[in-house]
């Protein structure tokens, strides 16, 4: 987590932002289930996950979505804000996966007075498989403002 303010003017297109990384398993899933009231047996119980054909319990898509929020939020800082976060669920989050949420700047623009940065984002597992590709937009502070 960085506390340094990132200004819109200082961000080049193509730049990769610092990743947000989590190793996930029952400890992470149960804590998220408690926050989101997302208590499904296949997220909490290995027997239920195995019954669905997975090696063990599986993680929530919503948790990966929340991690993508964190990725952008950490970068934008408290002087900026997250405006858009989205992803498609393409792969599962299995137990002990190390998820790396990544982002790369694809466009900078100004709209309605807001200094905006659009990014490709996603969630890769430790095998390098992209499990949740998507898009984000953040508002950054401007040196002109």
């Amino acid at each position: 987590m960085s506390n340094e303010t990132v200004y819109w003017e200082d961000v080049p297109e193509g730049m990769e932002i610092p990743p947000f990384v989590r190793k996930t398993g029952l400890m992470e899933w149960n804590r998220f289930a408690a926050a989101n009231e997302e208590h499904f047996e296949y997220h909490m119980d290995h027997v239920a996950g195995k019954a669905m054909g997975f090696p063990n319990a599986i993680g929530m898509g919503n948790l990966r979505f929340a991690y993508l929020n964190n990725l952008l939020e950490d970068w934008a800082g408290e002087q900026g804000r997250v405006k858009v976060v989205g992803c498609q669920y393409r792969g599962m989050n299995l137990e002990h996966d190390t998820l790396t949420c990544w982002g790369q700047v694809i466009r900078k623009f100004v709209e309605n007075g807001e200094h905006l940065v659009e990014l490709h984002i996603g969630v890769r597992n430790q095998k390098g498989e992209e499990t949740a590709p998507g898009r984000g937009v953040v508002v950054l502070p401007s040196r002109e403002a």
Partner: protein
Amino acid sequence: MPDISEVIQELRAQIGKEYGHRTSLPVDKSAIRLWAIGTRWPEPPKRLYWDEEYARKTPWQGIIAPPGFNPFAYHVDEERMQGPSTYGLLRTGEGNRGINAGGEATYHAPIRPSDVITSVSKIVEVSDLKTTRLGPSVFVITETRWTNQKGEVVRVYRGMGMRY
């Protein structure tokens, strides 16, 4: 047993009609803190989400909920889940099983403690019949809009579901 083309017809007939109205209970600071912990553990939650004194000095001028916070967990004040969300779900068989294929949230006004959030959804698009790994399938795009007690838009979510 209905086949998926019937389900597609039913879903298309509902495009643009509102369904799934929900109103939250007033958002509690503890729920915000719990969300901040549950989405960031094992790192500690950010001070903005639990320390009022700290949060007052930020541009937000007080505690806000993290983007993505769900104000509808653990009971809602009013729940009238009617309309297309129930289409097909009361039956079994083709077109009535669903998976969450993804979505995109646009955040507007932040959620603050004591806010009361109202949610309403509509179907915006229903694909033609597709064949996926799971068999005959259809993709449904829905839009869910959250507003606060002042009528400000808080979040608009475009979700993509797949039925098969």
